[in-house]
């Protein structure tokens, strides 16, 4: 084995050591916690627990150590490591180093593992009697995750993908790609000095959202293991009810953070990517939404059980399924199976067998355990009354669950294809195929969200219910009525039935928001500490309103209406044409606005180009400037990677992004002047219209011309009339100064026309006319108006805050319970 100069092998060795240490310590913790649960007497129990704890602390230290080591490698640009080379480069701003971490699969597994460590640590500190059985599951999950970054071959099967591998060991350096580093087909010992820079982070990910969205989302992912671990621990210990109060804050925490993480992804897509929206029913998005929905189901059946003894079995099932679906979504997004249906799945790392094992190793034991214990889980023989709160909580949870099954069923189409060898593909209108079903669910769930808090457990007195519910109902009806009448919601692309469904759902979501907001004052009497649930539901109502209005009223304002350009493509009549080309300096009509592209700017070291686009309201005259930006020809790849910019109003956003720029190759001015002989009054055609030679004069009205008093000036006045009947004037000038003849051409930028006046002959005036794209500076962009988008963001913030408040409240309650017992 030759040794190479310029390599830093120590960090990699430390990293590999810690990876193995983490694998062993998590396995050790699993076994020791298992022994502790199985131990016959308390002394044995405690001694195993102590061993387990030190093993888990070792695990925490190793994972944190792996993190620090990898950070060190990336931060110091040690490009001999494949991970650093693939995901970073010298230019990368320090704040994005963390983004490099989770750009790759390995780093995102580490992030997940890190959050498990944090959560496990909290459980060790707080959940005394549940610690051992719960930690068995979490330690085992840590073991499973540790195998994902192991990177060894076991009987020719690749287990894990290691972030500390060297480029030269990965076949990434070959004589073809890297000739300078090779000598007669052998890697030079100083090869490292020839690798001057890394491949770098995808520019689309160089964004603050990429720094904060993955950690929050993965915390949500990681947190779902806690309710799962509690549920399986309860089944295992046959203590079917004791876990309920303890798991409640954990379940709420998982749902709150997961929901926030998902919608941060939506906000990222909306704010910084050119997806033109915040949600597209992409499989990757669905795969994280579904566990959230099921978690919400579980929280609600848990509450129903707490107060009435009903729905315990479904609570078990929901919390188990939530985590299993997290694992399933990990399988979907990382195995490459979604390749043909998703825009942002991870690449296949060749670990599908391992990912499938990772899934099954949790699915089988937990579901078998559930089935085994099913009959033993206590149920209340008495039927719940139809007017009781628990009945409707259960119905709501069931509907949420069915909608989750619907979403994951549709998302799993590629899995079905693989299993059954079919070749089905998603339908034409993907978003509509989800929306048309889920809008019905959202209608019912909105109504249930509104009324459930007003129902009582066991039985509700009809008069008391009516007395408290009539006011919110009337207010919601009035608000909805005014939205329906004045809101101009007429989304009729999919027919009147769907439009009606939108209006009904707007009512139910307004109802949910109003009823829960009022409940804060009428139900919990304004005690904020108890208002968590109402606040969260109020936020949920706002989210629904925001989603419904912003999607049904999303308006494209860059419709290409220009009469010249369209209608020469096949079938162009049935296709929307959302791209509009703005020529620099020319105001273009866009819906409510006149829009002008008037300049660009760059501010190094920021590698982005900023384009200045001015929007001017046609009626009010109010104007604002947007700066959509883009990586132009990023590291010579000849591509445009754009980020949008938007003007935020309280009730709407105006949103635009660049879709195309002039191609620099085409931009060389290759056109030449074509001579024309014309007399005053003559007309000639060009490709987009015609022009008239109006006459000739002895002085020029043009500015910025250097004319000496002794010079003779001949100016030709031309009027250009384009096909869309816009009129422009041009004035090419001929200047005689002494013996010198100087022709000053004039340009009609909007029409790509250049005129030059070159002299006179008997037959008429000699004009040179040139049509050239190269003179033009332009941008092509899309622009939208998103109404009510802020209602959505506000709703998410309130929902998260309300959930965390409820979690805090339940932690306090549990603490008081414990104190009482003592």
């Amino acid at each position, binding site marked *: 084995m030759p040794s190479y100069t310029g390599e830093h092998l120590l960090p990699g060795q430390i990293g590999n050591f810690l990876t193995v240490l983490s694998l062993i310590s998590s396995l050790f913790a699993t076994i020791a916690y298992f022994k502790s649960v199985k131990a016959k007497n308390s002394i044995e129990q405690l001694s195993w627990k102590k061993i387990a704890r030190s093993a888990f602390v070792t695990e925490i230290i190793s994972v944190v150590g792996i993190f620090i080591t990898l950070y060190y490698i990336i931060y110091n640009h040690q490009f001999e490591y494949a991970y650093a080379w693939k995901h970073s480069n010298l230019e990368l701003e320090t704040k994005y180093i963390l983004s490099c971490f989770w750009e*790759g699969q390995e780093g995102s597994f580490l992030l997940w593992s890190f959050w498990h460590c944090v959560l496990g640590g909290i459980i060790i500190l707080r959940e005394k009697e549940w610690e051992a059985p719960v930690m068995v599951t979490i330690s085992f999950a840590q073991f499973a995750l540790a195998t994902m970054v192991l990177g060894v071959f076991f009987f020719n099967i690749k287990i894990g993908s290691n972030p500390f591998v060297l480029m030269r060991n990965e076949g990434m350096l070959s004589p073809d790609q890297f000739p300078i580093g090779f000598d007669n087909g052998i890697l030079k010992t100083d090869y490292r000095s020839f690798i001057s820079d890394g491949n770098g982070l995808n520019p689309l990910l160089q964004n603050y959202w990429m720094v904060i969205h993955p950690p929050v989302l993965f915390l949500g992912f990681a947190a779902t293991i806690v309710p799962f671990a509690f549920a399986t621990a309860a089944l295992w210990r046959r203590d079917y009810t004791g876990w309920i109060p303890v798991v409640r804050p954990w379940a709420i925490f998982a749902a709150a953070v997961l929901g926030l993480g998902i919608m941060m992804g939506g906000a990222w897509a909306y704010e910084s990517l050119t997806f033109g929206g915040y949600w597209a029913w992409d499989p990757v998005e669905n795969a994280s939404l579904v566990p959230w929905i099921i978690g919400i189901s579980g929280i609600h059946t848990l509450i129903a059980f707490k107060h009435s003894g009903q729905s315990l079995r479904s609570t078990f099932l929901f919390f188990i399924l939530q985590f299993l679906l997290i694992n399933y979504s990990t399988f979907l997004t990382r195995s490459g199976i979604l390749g043909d249906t998703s825009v942002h799945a991870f690449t296949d790392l060749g670990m599908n067998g391992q990912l499938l094992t990772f899934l099954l190793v949790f699915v089988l034991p937990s579901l078998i355990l559930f089935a085994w214990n099913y009959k033993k889980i206590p149920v209340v023989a008495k039927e719940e009354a139809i007017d009781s709160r628990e009945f409707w909580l259960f119905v709501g949870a069931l509907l949420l669950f069915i909608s989750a099954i619907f979403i994951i069923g549709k998302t799993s189409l590629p899995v079905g294809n693989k299993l059954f060898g079919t070749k089905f593909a998603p339908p*034409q*209108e993907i978003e509509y195929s989800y929306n048309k079903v889920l809008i019905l669910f959202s209608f019912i769930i909105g109504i249930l969200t509104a009324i459930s808090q007003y129902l009582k457990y066991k039985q509700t007195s009809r008069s008391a219910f009516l007395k408290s519910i009539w006011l919110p109902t009337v207010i919601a009806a009035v608000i909805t009525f005014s939205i329906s009448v004045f809101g101009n919601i007429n989304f009729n692309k999919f027919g009147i039935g769907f439009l009606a469904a939108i209006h009904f759902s707007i009512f139910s979501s307004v109802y949910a928001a109003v009823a829960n907001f009022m409940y804060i004052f009428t139900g919990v009497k304004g005690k904020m500490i108890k208002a968590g649930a109402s606040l969260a539901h109020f936020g949920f109502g706002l989210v629904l309103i925001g989603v419904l209005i912003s999607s049904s009223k999303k308006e494209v304002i860059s419709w290409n209406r220009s009469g010249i350009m369209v209608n020469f*493509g096949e*079938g162009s009549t049935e296709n929307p044409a*959302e791209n509009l080309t703005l020529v620099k300096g020319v105001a273009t009509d866009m819906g409510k606005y006149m829009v002008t592209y008037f300049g660009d700017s760059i501010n190094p070291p920021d590698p982005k180009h900023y384009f200045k686009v001015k929007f001017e309201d046609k009626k009010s005259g109010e104007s604002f400037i947007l700066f959509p930006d883009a990586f132009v020809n990023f590291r010579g790849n000849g591509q445009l990677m754009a980020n949008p910019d938007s003007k935020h109003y309280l009730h709407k956003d105006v949103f635009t992004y660049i879709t195309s720029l002039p191609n620099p190759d085409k931009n060389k001015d290759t056109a030449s002047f074509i001579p024309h002989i014309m007399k005053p009054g003559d007309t000639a055609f060009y490709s987009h219209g015609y022009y008239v030679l109006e006459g000739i004069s002895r002085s020029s009205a043009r500015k910025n011309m250097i004319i000496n008093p002794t010079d003779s000036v001949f100016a030709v006045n031309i009027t250009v009339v384009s096909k869309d009947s816009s009129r422009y004037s041009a004035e090419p000038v001929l200047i005689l100064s002494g013996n010198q003849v100087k022709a000053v051409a004039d340009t009609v930028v909007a029409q790509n026309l250049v005129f030059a006046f070159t002299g006179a002959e008997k037959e008429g005036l000699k004009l040179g006319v040139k049509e050239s794209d190269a003179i033009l500076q*332009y941008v092509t962009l899309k622009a939208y108006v998103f109404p009510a988008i802020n209602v959505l963001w506000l709703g998410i913030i309130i929902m998260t805050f309300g959930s965390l408040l409820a979690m805090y409240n339940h932690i306090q309650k549990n603490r008081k319970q414990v104190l009482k017992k003592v």
Partner: protein
Amino acid sequence: MKTVHIVILVVIAVAIGILISSIGDLSTYDTISSAKAKPGKFIHIIARLDTTEGKKIVYDALKNPNYLSFHIVDSLGGRAKVVYLKGQPPTDMVKSDRMVLKGKMTDSAFLCDDILIKCPSKYTDSKAKISTAAK
């Protein structure tokens, strides 16, 4: 039978109904030749960019910012022209080793609604040139 059981049955029945009805919306993956056999039907084609015989990607934002045309070839050797009326060529189209195209086959070309680009690697290009500029 409890009310809850009735509710569960009803909800499940509705859910099954919805699932069955949504199967009808599904599209299929086709090859270029099988797509030509069913013009006007919404389908998915998996193919790659065809640049043989001087075939070019045509896009000129000044002429029409919504018109893009290019040629594709699939694994069975079927060839077709594609017209996309929603704008510029997607990022990485030239680098891609595979594209999923959604749309309808017409007499003159495949009229495409949506293009999904599959690169050798999604976020990183492992075959990327190794930067060897002097330090």
